[in-house]
């Protein structure tokens, strides 16, 4: 069974498999984004207190959720690489970092832009915002460490260790609003316990979240395929399939 898994996760098979999935994922992403944007920006009602400014929610929340999700994927992929030394997990971990950093940056910036009219301040040093900022530094540190070490294999393993060490930040970000009194809103949505958001706002948010997830999968596949092409450019399968690549 392990042999079958190792064969499935070879560069060549991943490349082929993701190549078939990519157009579908791209199309689904586009549809979800268009639906979510129209629903969130046009159809959804205005908030009683914040009027139209709350619509930033439809970007801010999915970006923040993705920043955490992508980091976990990156760290898990790194752990798989450390334990089983598979090549694909190394490629996936590296492909996660830039997009994860972008999601984190967007969460921070849209949060600041939203916070300014709502709370009167662009920034506050509470637990959630501070730990989200730390997350951005962790992503940047991952990329910096990986590019600083010359030997590619060592770089991948060192970066994987860093990613795993930084995992401790994720629960801090997630639970900080419950642990400390903070400016940031307490979680209104939780798995299993439903949400305190009104359905007219909840569903467009879910659509946008799905859109971001499919977007991430699409970008991840595109970036990973590029890295595979670069690493294997002199290999047999690339040469043979040259026309179909």
């Amino acid at each position, binding site marked *: 069974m392990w042999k079958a898994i190792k064969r499935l996760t070879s560069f060549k098979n991943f490349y082929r498999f993701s190549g078939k999935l990519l157009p579908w994922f791209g199309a689904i992403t586009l549809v979800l984004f268009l639906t979510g944007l129209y629903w969130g920006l046009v159809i959804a009602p205005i908030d009683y207190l914040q009027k139209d400014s709350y619509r930033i929610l439809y970007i801010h929340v999915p970006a923040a959720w993705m920043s955490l999700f992508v980091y976990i994927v990156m760290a898990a992929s790194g752990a798989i690489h*450390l334990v089983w030394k598979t090549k694909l997990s190394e490629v996936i971990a590296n492909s996660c970092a830039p997009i994860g950093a972008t999601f984190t940056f967007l969460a921070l910036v849209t949060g600041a832009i939203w916070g300014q009219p709502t709370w009167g301040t662009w920034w506050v040093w509470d637990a959630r915002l*501070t730990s989200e900022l*730390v997350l951005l*530094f*962790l992503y*940047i*540190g991952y990329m*910096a*460490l990986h590019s*600083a*070490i010359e030997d590619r294999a*060592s770089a991948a*393993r*060192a970066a994987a*260790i*860093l990613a*795993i*060490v*930084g995992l*401790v930040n994720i629960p*801090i970000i997630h639970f900080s609003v419950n642990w400390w009194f903070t400016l940031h809103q307490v979680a209104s949505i939780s798995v299993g316990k439903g949400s305190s958001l009104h359905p007219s706002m909840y569903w467009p948010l879910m659509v946008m979240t799905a859109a971001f997830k499919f977007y991430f999968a699409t970008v991840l596949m595109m970036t990973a395929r590029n890295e595979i092409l670069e690493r294997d450019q002199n290999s047999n399968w690339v040469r043979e399939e040259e026309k179909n690549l």
Partner: protein
Amino acid sequence: MTNTSLKAFNAMVRRDFTLALRNKSEWANPLFFFILACSLFPLGIGPEPNTLEKIAPGIIWVTALLAAMLSLDGIFRSDFEDGSLEQQILGPHPFTILVYAKILVHWLITGIPLMLLSPLLGVILHLPADGIILLMISLLLGTPVLSLIGSIGVALTVGVKRGGMLLSLLVLPLYIPVLIFGAGAVDVGLGGLDTSGHFLLMAAILVLAITLAPLATAAALKVSV
């Protein structure tokens, strides 16, 4: 820990401690930096006692943190360069035990002196006596964590040429919780509120760091060497 591991631990502690003491600049420079950097603040912000008193815990904590970080390079550098680190990894003793020993020595050489110097700096920055005591406790709990977490960063970057800046980039984000609770404990205590929450959290972070950090450091060193 088996008998031989304990002996190896003690031997490594004694060796590194002796080596560090002989290299005066390694332990003296961080302390001079600590004093100098703290002194810059009254010169830059103005010597008004009320202002300084309010920000003293933060200043002392940040400069202690930076001093500890600047001294981190010494933990593995010389052993890495002359090849002893490789021998220690390949040797018969569990490498993690040896890593523990090195981190302990770093804390003894850097962290404890920083803690002992802090009252002097507290006085310069007009920190009241209660604050100084709280400061020393917070540094006592916090500096081991700085050594432990810092060792992970050094281990990851020991093979990188001129990795000093990279080390800061990796280590400072992980230091932030320690700084927040350490300096926060002093602020809260001076305000008359209960500090037990802060100190308990710092103790918890310390326990977490002691148990997990050396594992990561050892793994990182095996990658870098």
